[in-house]
């Protein structure tokens, strides 16, 4: 048994961390956070040059074909840097959906452009507040035409293409749904920027009015493909969340080791020590769940859906807690705009919501336990 990343994977991690600490310091994040730009174009270009976008894309489609463990390694580093680039929308969601359900032409058409950084993709599900369900999906995709409205589409203003969950028949259930690939620059597509709690991940409302689109996978399979893609994205995002949580712990610790109150380092008070110990515990548990997810992802294991839900819930809880209590540890200064704490506080919530809230994943987790009897 070996429940650790390989030396090559660790080298990849070290070089990625070095690269991002140089090219993606928080001032880079702040630029996007405070600016109108949806993402940092230079950083995106360089990330493409590093080949990260194609980490898990087979060589025949222009990727490096390294595999998912390597992609998990990259994901953790992007999470640590809260990199302001449309990586997750493009790689975890769009590319994964094409790989999961695309025809050979579709793979040939989209994947090389993704690997080279020419194409930004995203995935559109929600149409309003509340749970995303087959029932709540009103957008229609019939006869190659897509109509309806999607909200809170991550990187929606900058994406070239979107995969859209829509209704393909009158069947009110899962089987009535399909996925459509649509060129967001084509006729019948209108976009509006939406304010995001995390301006370093911009959102958009996208309206489709008889926009031309091509099918991804069979009509009726929309829901089932989506949920497979979400499982994979959840594991990759869990690594971003664990990376973020880890940085919050380090920030809090460093501050506690230099801030004095009542003549003592605040890190010598149990209230701070135990808070940080809990951050550590949650983050380690989340990391272990994410590792298991990475294994399931890389081996396409039967346990993938359970592993994904566990990684998702665990990482969301760990990042939420770490981001929240990192700010608290910093005290007043941590609540100022000038400090970086709030980037992580906001990113933690955004990541925790963008693939669907904990509640849905917890329910999914228990359903998997009921099937597997692993519970």
């Amino acid at each position, binding site marked *: 048994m070996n429940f650790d990343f390989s030396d090559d994977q660790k080298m990849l991690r070290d070089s990625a961390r070095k690269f991002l600490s140089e090219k993606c310091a928080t001032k880079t994040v702040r630029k996007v956070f405070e600016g109108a730009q949806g993402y940092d174009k230079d950083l995106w270009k360089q990330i493409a040059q590093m080949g990260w976008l194609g980490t898990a894309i087979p060589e025949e489609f222009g990727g490096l074909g390294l595999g998912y463990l390597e992609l998990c390694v990259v994901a953790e580093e992007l999470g640590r840097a809260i990199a302001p680039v449309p990586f997750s929308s493009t790689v975890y969601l769009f590319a994964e959906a094409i790989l999961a359900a695309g025809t050979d032409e579709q793979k040939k058409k989209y994947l090389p452009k993704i690997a080279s950084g020419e194409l930004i993709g995203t995935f559109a599900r929600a149409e309003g*507040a509340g*749970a995303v369900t087959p029932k709540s999906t009103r957008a229609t995709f019939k006869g190659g035409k897509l109509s309806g409205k999607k909200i809170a589409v991550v990187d929606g203003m900058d994406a070239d293409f979107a995969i859209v969950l829509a209704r393909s028949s009158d069947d009110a259930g899962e089987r009535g749904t399909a996925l459509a690939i649509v060129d967001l620059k084509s006729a019948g597509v209108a976009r509006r920027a939406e304010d995001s*709690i995390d301006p370093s991940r911009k959102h958009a409302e996208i309206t489709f009015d008889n926009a031309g689109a091509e099918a991804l996978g069979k009509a009726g399979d929309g829901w089932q493909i989506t949920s497979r893609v979400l499982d994979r994205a959840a594991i990759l995002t869990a690594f971003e969340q664990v990376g973020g949580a880890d940085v919050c712990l380090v920030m809090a610790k460093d501050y506690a080791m230099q801030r*004095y109150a009542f*003549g003592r380092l605040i890190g010598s008070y149990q*209230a701070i020590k135990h808070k940080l110990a809990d951050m550590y515990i949650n983050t380690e548990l989340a990391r272990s769940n994410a590792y298991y997810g990475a294994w399931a992802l890389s081996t396409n294991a039967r346990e993938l859906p359970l592993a994904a839900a566990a990684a998702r819930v665990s990482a969301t809880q760990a990042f939420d807690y770490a981001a929240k209590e990192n*700010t608290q540890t910093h005290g007043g200064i*941590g609540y100022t705009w000038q400090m970086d704490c709030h980037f992580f506080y906001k990113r933690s*919530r955004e990541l925790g919501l963008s693939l669907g809230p904990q509640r*849905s994943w917890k329910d999914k987790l228990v359903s998997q336990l009921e099937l597997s009897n692993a519970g």
Partner: protein
Amino acid sequence: MDFEDTQDEAAFRAEANTWLSANARPRGAKSAKDDIEEMENGAAGEMAASKAWQKKKAQAGYARITWPKGMGGMGGTPMQSIIFNQEEAKYDVPVGAPFAIGLGMCIPTLMTYGDDAAKKRYIVPAVQGDEIWCQLFSEPAGGSDVAGLRTRAEKKGDEWVINGQKIWTTGAQFSDYGILLTRTDANVPKHKGLTMFYIDMHDPAVEVRPIKQASGGSGFNEVFFTDLKVKDSQRLGEVGQGWQVALTTLMHERLAVGGGQGGGLDVKELMGLARTLELEDGPALKNASVREKIADWYVRSAGLKYTTYRTMTALSQGKQPGPEASIAKIVVASKLQDISAFAMELEGEAGALKGEDAPAHGAFQMGWMSAPGLRIAGGTDEILRNIIAERVLGLPQDVRVDKDVPFNKMPSGR
């Protein structure tokens, strides 16, 4: 045990209502969002209106009911001022926030330590809302540790020359005067080397810079002093007695009955949201886990509300509410953070939006973004728990390495 007014209370309530209805319009629905915006920005918005309303109340004796006549008060009881506040809340009047610190903390301190000339000069204009006061205690080097402050005041003849920086000063941007805690002797233990003054905030030697909060709002300021000259007559209390003076000020702060914080985002608003949402298994309000959380938060809100009633009763019996008032902010701040985060979970992907793009006009996003500030401002969760443990339960202080060391010998990381 009953919730009815006594005869006198009922009479006073009627009186107050007569006056209020003659001077203000009943209040319409006000969104939780507005409340939070006020909390965020210290209600700098409607200053003129606030001042006018404050003057009206002062002239009628409602501005500071428990204070003597001619001082903007009517020599009333604490219960009467509680009743007036309850009634005033039903009318569409500008917020009194700008005056809260001056009248709640600064002026009472001036009453205790100022000379007659100062009392004569400053009390009435403050009660009438003509002059606004702020409190200048916190510093970058001493947040929770207020007495760790470094702003120096040096005696030069009959004047003091003050240099240094304050932070987290609420309302400094629109204040006319402030009470300022300074260090006048760094060679004695930190609590012994402090001295309190009141200063003119319009002095060119005073520079106010607003602080932008993580939420985007700006309710607080940094205040810089560069060779600010202050007359010795503006000293409050003896030289070196500043900490005792400050404790009076802070004691007055706690007299304000808790509750009300948290920008009114509570169970009611959460249920309102839940009524509008569909989850995987049907209406959100029918979901067992949603219901359980609503109940958990409700018992804390209700418990706090009735604790406030108990405190009011104590006040009306002439007792002084103790530090148990500190429980309010601990409970409210975390509850605001938890309810907001949970509401965003219910909203799902749409929960990641804010402002008008988000459900409920982004009220929960705003609550969630301001909650971390509420958990810190006016005493962090940790400091407040210390206060409860030490002052309510009587547990011993933590080991204090800073008590008997000269301030300039105290470890500070500098």
